[in-house]
């Protein structure tokens, strides 16, 4: 399973991809907000977005799965 995890605790500020979108390694898929700073979360590998586990405004912890790539 290819998962994109949260790099740190924070709130999901922007979802930049939708289910079914194809992404490439290094592409920013989600922007988190932590300590009033925007933190981009990038895909580590190429793939297609299978499932998005979070919604904008959700609070996530470090290591939480944000997106599952198919």
């Amino acid at each position: 399973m290819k998962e994109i995890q949260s790099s740190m605790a924070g709130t999901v500020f922007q979802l930049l991809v939708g289910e079914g979108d194809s992404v490439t390694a290094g592409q920013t898929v989600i922007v988190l907000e932590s300590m009033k700073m925007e933190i981009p979360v990038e895909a580590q590998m190429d793939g297609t977005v299978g499932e998005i586990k979070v919604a904008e405004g959700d609070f996530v912890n470090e290591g939480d799965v944000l997106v599952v790539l198919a």
Partner: protein
Amino acid sequence: MERGMGMKKLLIANRGEIALRIIRTCKKMKIQTVVVYSEADAELPYIKEADKAYLIGPPQVSQSYLKMNEILEIAKKEKADAIHPGYGLLSENAQFARMVEEAGIIFIGPSPAIIESMGDKIKARKTMIEAGVPVVPGQENESADLEAAKLFASEAGYPVMLKASNGGGGVGMVRCDNEQALTQHFESTKKRSQAYFGSGSLFIEKYIANARHIEVQIFGDTNGNVFHLFERNCSMQRRNQKIIEEAPSPNLSQSARENILEIAVLAAESVGYKNAGTIEMIVDEEENAYFLEMNTRLQVEHPVTEMITGIDLVEWQINTAQGLPLPIQDQHEITEQGHAIEYRVYAEDPFTFIPSPGLLSEMEVSAGEGIRVDYGYQKGNKVTPFYDPMIAKIIIHAQSREECLEKSKKVMKDSKIEGLKSNIPLFTALMDAEEFKRGNYHTQTLQNILKGEKK
């Protein structure tokens, strides 16, 4: 508002270091304090220092520190005479100030009308132009129209700054070097403006190269006088946010300094300002000063001014808010002594600025003469991702700038902050940077130093 000297109880609608700092003055003035806190802040020192504390909600500020009705209800229940908003959060919220006043409680700050007019950057700018205060060439873009922004930028020349009309603290602000960048950043800036400040209205202005950010602490008394308490240089910034502030400003000619102080007083007088406020200015390479914005509240970096003037700004705020005169009647009675530098200690990577929430397993900053530490957290506290990463401010005062730097160096070396990353190593590195040593720096200097550029 005819309460005379009767202030007995004050509610602080804030958290962390500023709440603790306000409590300190209240204790000196024999005023009882009531604080509010979120679930994430239950262990913080300010709660223990207050006479009474109320849990108001979950960590997110929208569900805790920004809940105006709840905070007001607590103030009423506690029969608080006044509410001090600190900085950030509700401090520049005119609606809140109005609600507080309507409840018969003193809001410590200027009138809601002034908060409103200065909070709207477009209105503030217009007011300043009318008063004869110089401003940076810029244009309002209320409907967030990209074509109008492009037109302005091509006429004024790139680079331009794009920002939220209602913004502040560097949030929602982006530099665009060309039309492509402007187009690219437009939508996200609009969205950010909407998300953080409740309005998609944007402002675009000419970017001034190698600009210094110099601001003036002003104070309006109950008799309609406006005084200045000198300037602060806040040009050492990361992500458009200040990390070091100092007073007096190094490398500023006496005539430019006088001009800046004069402009600030004129700006504050033109709106009939009362209580503590700050006029932020941009100073270009030729030492021309332009009005940037007015902050209608106590500033994070106010201790720098307190250190050189010996004035307790919170005490002045409280007294003025309850209609009492200042201890001075004339500008010449406000004097400055020596040099002060403030370092904002952030829980973040010192060089990438990525936030570093976590458990503060050790926090020790050496005490001593001319060393002031305004802290929000202490050893054993958890620094959570819900708020600004600032954990403390270290303010150093000495007779000269050179001495101040020497002392700073030692304090940074002896400071122990463990369990999370802090930006102390950045300060240590800056002590050896020529630009900082010589006091010859502008708002891009830090970035240039980090890039290893010699500029």
